[in-house]
């Protein structure tokens, strides 16, 4: 489990990430999407403890990375961006060194290294120096370094960059195989990869979390009115009559005239309702043969673009203003707390006084009744 709580990373007046919050549950594969410089790598570096946040807390499997860094880091397998490797070591030596750094016990180390090398398909090159490997293999070595020792949490920064299509599929399959008993956070620019691999997606832009949801929810939430892609055999050129007969149709746009004289159109509608039945009926009346008709699906890419584009670019003045407002809010909250504390204290003192008074009166009453009893006895 990874929990990022109110984390901010600030360099002078520049916010690399600002007040981000998210949680990744055990066994989840989560994608981290964002444009270049959005704050993906900074967030990953914060989670792995490579850099410290200016504000906020990060918990890795329950361990605060600032307070218990050793325990927190022992849970993580990190594959940094750009595949940094020790070029004077062989593949096996590198993976073994990573296992040693991760405190894998000596008895289990050999098996752990063998497993990591096997899983990443590096058996053939395990005795080669890493500097002599192709980019794809280097990527695999870096991945082997991350998974050696079977860490509970994997953080992969652009894991498939530089791989050929076959290797990409292999690495994706490998990542999928970790689904059951690992928590995986992947950053990638390849949106199709994220939608294939991940159960949830975190979209970050300009250092702020824009959306956290499943790929399908993001796609449906950001999709607008229904669009249809239709291929017709329309000898009479009467397709435009559909617009007059079906009121939901906003626009019919010719996309392509094919060699066999069939035509492909994009029909834009003004509602989200499915109007395919109506179109089918009207086409039948107008003697238009429908060869193909499908909904134009909103992809994760569309969702991503819609979410991150046109987001306001804050000026320094606005950033200062927000910071000022935040500080004022904090001061107000602090003052409220103090006032509340004072009131509680006053209340407690009052109650204590009342209690003491009641005790005194009870004692007085007891004394009086004793005296009365004594007087009665004397009489």
């Amino acid at each position, binding site marked *: 489990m990874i929990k990022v709580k109110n984390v901010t990373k600030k360099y002078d007046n520049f916010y690399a990430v600002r007040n981000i919050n998210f949680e990744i549950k055990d066994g989840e594969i989560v994608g981290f999407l964002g444009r270049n410089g959005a704050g993906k790598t900074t967030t990953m*570096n914060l989670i*792995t*403890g*490579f*850099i*410290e946040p*200016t504000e906020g807390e990060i918990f890795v499997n329950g361990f605060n990375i600032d307070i218990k*860094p*050793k*325990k927190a*880091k*022992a849970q*993580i397998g*990190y594959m*940094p961006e*750009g595949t*940094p*490797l*020790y*070029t*004077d*070591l062989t593949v096996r*030596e590198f993976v073994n*060194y*990573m296992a*040693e*750094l*991760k*405190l894998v016990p000596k008895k289990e180390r050999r098996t752990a290294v063998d497993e990591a090398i096997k899983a990443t398909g590096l058996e053939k090159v395990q005795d080669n120096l890493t500097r002599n490997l192709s980019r794809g293999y280097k990527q695999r070595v870096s991945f082997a*370094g991350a998974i050696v020792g079977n860490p509970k949490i994997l953080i992969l920064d652009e894991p498939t960059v530089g791989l050929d299509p076959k290797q990409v599929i292999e690495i994706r399959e490998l990542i999928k195989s970790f689904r059951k008993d690992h928590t995986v956070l992947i950053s990638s620019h390849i949106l199709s990869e994220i939608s294939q691999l991940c159960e949830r997606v975190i979209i970050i832009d300009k250092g702020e979390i824009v959306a956290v949801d499943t790929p399908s929810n993001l796609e449906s939430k950001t999709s607008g009115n229904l669009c249809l892609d239709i291929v017709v055999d329309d000898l009479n050129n009467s397709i435009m009559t559909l617009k007059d007969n079906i009121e939901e149709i906003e626009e019919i746009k010719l996309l392509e005239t094919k060699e066999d004289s069939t035509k492909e159109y994009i029909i834009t509608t003004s509602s989200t309702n499915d109007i395919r039945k109506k179109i089918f009926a009207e086409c039948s009346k107008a003697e238009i043969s429908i060869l193909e008709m499908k909904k134009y699906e909103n992809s994760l890419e569309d969702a991503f673009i819609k979410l991150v584009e046109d987001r306001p670019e804050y000026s320094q003045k606005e950033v200062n203003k927000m910071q000022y407002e935040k500080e004022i809010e904090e001061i107000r909250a602090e003052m409220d707390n103090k006032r509340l504390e004072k009131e509680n204290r006053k209340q407690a003192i009052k109650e204590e006084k009342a209690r003491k008074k009641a005790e005194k009166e009870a004692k007085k009453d007891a004394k009086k009744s004793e005296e009365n009893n004594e007087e009665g006895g004397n009489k």
Partner: protein
Amino acid sequence: MFAVYKKELKTYVCTPIGYVFIGLFLLILSLMFYVGIFSSQYINFEYLFYDGTTIILFTLPLLTMRLFSEERKNGTDQLLFTSPRSITSIVLGKFFAAVTIVLIAELFTLMYFFILNYFGNPSLPIALTTLLGFFLFCISGIAIGMFVSSITENQIISAFATIGVFLLMLFGPQLTNLFKPFYTVYFFQESFLTGLVKLKSVILFIALTVLFILLTIIGLQKRKSLK
């Protein structure tokens, strides 16, 4: 610490750096030995180390320049500092690996003692105090070089900056009293080379070493919040 130590030692052995350092140091020392001692038939082992200190000031940065600069430049510091190893253990692992290479170079200097012993009768106790002093002198130099390496990602800058610091320590005391406590060459020469192990000198070298190791650890820790 041992994992980092082993890996660093391997790097020194598998790359030319270790051999270049040992080879260059012994080559210049051998020339000094031939010109200054052997040809003048002067049976004095410790005499060799008057020059040895100057040679090491220029060759030691070869060992220390890459310690952290290379990691930073290649991005492998991400692998090191995201591992469950503490910064202290990483720094000490690297430090002791460099110390081991210096120790190997120093053991090779014993051959000059045996050559002199063949022709005459050099003093063994003075030779031993000389070697002890030289070792302490070198480890303080490694700590300084490692600190400089931790504050830059360019190895060349790291090497020249280390040489600059060494030169300041060498000539600074003649310019101002401010550098007097760091006049390690003087402390080495007036104590160990005369066969005396002065507590003041030993403490100075050890204090310098510990100070710069601590500065390296604090600097790396501090950089986490600045990065």
